Structure formats: C-alpha cells, structure tokens
C-alpha cells in the first residue's frame, strides 16, 4: 500500500498552533506561490518554507515516499513544458539568448531555462507547506477549530469524518484487492486495458457497497445521538486561538501582501533579469 501523509504527534510550537491557523497559512501560501513568478519572491518563500519545515521536526521517513513521487511528476512536467513550447521563455521575457541548438524548433535558450527554473522553485515552495500542514494538524482539533471560527459544524464534521475514515477505507481497499488477487485477478500492467477496467471494477464494487453501508451505519448512529438537533455544539478537542496563532496569521497575511506588492510592482508577475 502506498504510504500517505498523515498526522503525527510531536512537541513543537507548530503542532501547538490551531488547525485553522495552519489552514490559513497553507491557503495563502499556495495562493501567493501560484500568483507570483518573481524569482526573488519565490526564493525567499523557498527558504522560509524550508525553515518552517525544519522547525516542524518532520522526518524523512514520514514524507520520503511521497517526495519521490512528486519529483517524478516534476521532471515529467518540466520536460513536457519544453516539448510543447520550447520558446515559452522567449515569449515571456522578450529576448532570445540561444545556448545551443538541438533539432528543428528546439533551441536551448537562457530564457527557457530560467522560466523552467521558476516552475521548479514554485513546486518546491508549496511542497514543504503541504507536508507541514498534513503531518502537524490533528484532524479532530481541526474540525473543532473550524467550528469555533464560525464555520457550520456540519462542514467541520464532514471534514473530520473524511480524515478519520481515509485509513479505514484504504485498509479495506487493500484487503479486497488482496482477496481478488488471491482469486487470480490480474491488476498489473500485464492485462489489457478493457480487462484492467473490469478487474478494477471487481475491487470498486465491493468497496462502494461496503462504504454505502458504512454511511448508513454512521449516519444512523449520529442520528440516534441527536446530531444536528441544535444550532451549536461543544467540542472535546477545541481550543481558542492563542497569541502564537494571531502572530502566525498576521505574519502570513503581511508576507503575502508584501510578496504580491513586490511581484506586481513593475506591472508583470515575472522577474526579468534579461531586460
């Protein structure tokens, strides 16, 4: 079974922060990284992300497997960009400094390399933020904090149930898959496309039906305990935002605004060292 990122308890101030604070950080961080192509901003974000990652005491064995997968995607993406559009850099920066020629329309230009470097840094600024959010946020506390922020507790509960049941559903998926493989159903690349779809269906059908049962059981249990009867509810894991939370949120907002101001100061989201 593929190892996925999940919460692990540790004693750092990042773990102590409210889940909502980390969500705000995560969303604003992604947004800023999405909008900016300014190399100076991206490098600053990269350094900050690495520092935060270090402080959260995340270990390689928690994220290593996923990290390798991200690297594969990154390489494919960078190659695909070049394959489809070797002159994207020139189109953006307006100059063309050819380093050497490969074949046909494929030149290697400084502008293209610089543009793709920006794409790579963009990836690397987001990855630590995603890892940090997932491995340091306690799902129960997160749901409670969301509700404290004024989000409807139905929404909080949906998210909490999702996070709670991902390992269960995954375990069940693996169990069904092993059972079907024991019956001789081929799941690997050896089978043809149509038979692979059919074979996948032999896992998905039982999984769906047991999940539909689970939905019935869980919602009946909640109904019996009077879920949704009142407008408000209390939480075991909830905690109010503390001083560190406000500081972190303030920092995130200020940083994002500053980053965007710097990025768009010259009217373009790109930083042009060639001009």
């Amino acid at each position: 079974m593929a190892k996925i990122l999940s919460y692990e308890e540790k004693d750092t101030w990042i773990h102590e922060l409210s889940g909502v604070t980390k969500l705000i950080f995560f969303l604003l961080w992604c947004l800023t990284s999405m909008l900016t192509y300014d190399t100076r901003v991206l490098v600053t974000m990269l350094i900050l992300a690495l520092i935060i990652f270090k402080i959260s005491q995340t270990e390689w064995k928690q994220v290593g497997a996923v990290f390798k997968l991200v690297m594969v995607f990154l390489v494919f993406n960078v190659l695909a960009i070049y394959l489809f559009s070797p002159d994207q850099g020139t189109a953006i920066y307006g100059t063309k400094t050819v380093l050497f020629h490969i074949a046909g329309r494929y030149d290697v230009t400084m502008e293209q390399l610089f543009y793709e470097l920006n794409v790579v840094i963009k990836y690397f600024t987001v990855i630590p933020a995603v890892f940090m959010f997932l491995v340091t946020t306690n799902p129960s506390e997160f749901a409670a904090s969301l509700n404290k922020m004024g989000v409807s507790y139905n929404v909080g509960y949906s998210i909490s149930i999702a996070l709670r049941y991902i390992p269960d559903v995954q375990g069940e998926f693996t169990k069904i898959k092993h059972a079907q493989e024991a019956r001789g159903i081929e799941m690997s690349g050896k089978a043809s496309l149509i038979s692979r779809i059919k074979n996948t269906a032999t896992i998905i059908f039982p999984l769906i039906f047991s999940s539909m049962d689970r939905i019935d059981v869980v919602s009946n249990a909640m109904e019996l305990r009077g879920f949704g009867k009142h407008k408000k509810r209390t939480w075991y894991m909830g905690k109010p935002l503390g001083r560190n939370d406000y500081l972190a949120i303030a920092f995130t907002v200020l940083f994002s605004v500053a980053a965007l101001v710097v990025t768009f100061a010259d009217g373009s989201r790109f930083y042009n060292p060639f001009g």
Partner: protein
Amino acid sequence: MKLKFGIKEVVAIGIGTALFVALTQIQIPTGIPNTYLQPRMAIMAFLAAVFGPIVGAVVGLLGHALGDAMFYGSVWWSWVFPDGLVGLAIGLFAAKYAVKEGGFDKKAIILFNVAQIVVNAVAWIGLAPLLDILIYAEPVEKLFVQGAGAFLGNILIIGILGTLLCAGYSKIGAKSSSLSKED
C-alpha cells in the same frame, strides 16, 4: 428540485471523500502519455448521482485537494475546481436518476451520460486550461492537450464504471423495496 442537507449528506461527504482519496492510488494508463483513467472520478459521479449536487461538488473539491496533497505532496488548484464542477453538474439531476429507488433505467442512463459528457467537456477543455493559463502561465498547447486527455479519460471511466455502479446499486436498492401488496 429541493436541496437536502441532513446527517446522511454530512456523512456521505465525509466517507465519500475518504473513498475518493483512497482510490487516488489507482490510475489506469491508457497508452496515451499523461492520460490516465481515474476510477475515483467514477466514484464521485456515483456519489453525486445518489446524494445530489452538494455532496458531488464537495467530494470533488475536498477529495481532489486532499488526495493530491496526500499522495503527490502538492495541490494543482486549477484542476480541483473543475472536479467540483463535474460533481455538482452530475448531481443536479439526482432526483431524475432515482438510483436509490431502483429507477436507474435506460432513460436515466442516457441523461446521466449526456450530463457527464457535457460537463466534462466544459470542465477539462474549457475551465481547467483556462485556470492553468491564468494561474500558472504554462504553455497553452500543453495545457489543451492535457485537458483533452483528461476529458477523454474521464468520460470513458464515468461512462463505463460510473454507469455500471449506478445500475448495480440501483438494482440492489430496488430489491429491498420490491414487495408488492397481496390481494
């Protein structure tokens, strides 16, 4: 059409999202580069058909964002929103499919597939590349090829697996309420 949002929907979003995330790991390569059949899309279409547009949209949004984050370590936002749109649009006709009541017949199958093909076209050939261009400023040709690939992969998997799931579940649902009064 009335929008229902009760305990069942809360739980369906939760467990549906968990399903969607868990199934992120199955990707069937089609032989066309960068194009995979994603069974998780069929699951989302099924849940939308059973529980309606809100469940479909939230499972698409939340499931895609969480699944990508957990398995790939980064979230491709411009593809998260089209996924939510697909779930929403398929779910709009939930009452017409009547999956739970055993009413998923030929007419419902046609409606389900017309809806999914139209919304997939809008989402993957229109919305996703558009957001990609706005947000990521990547080369336009690459984005439209990727979008077209996603469109093909998704209509195939939802058309085959999604339809089968709805039909199968509809049959079981019908059995539990197929008692008729004896004279």
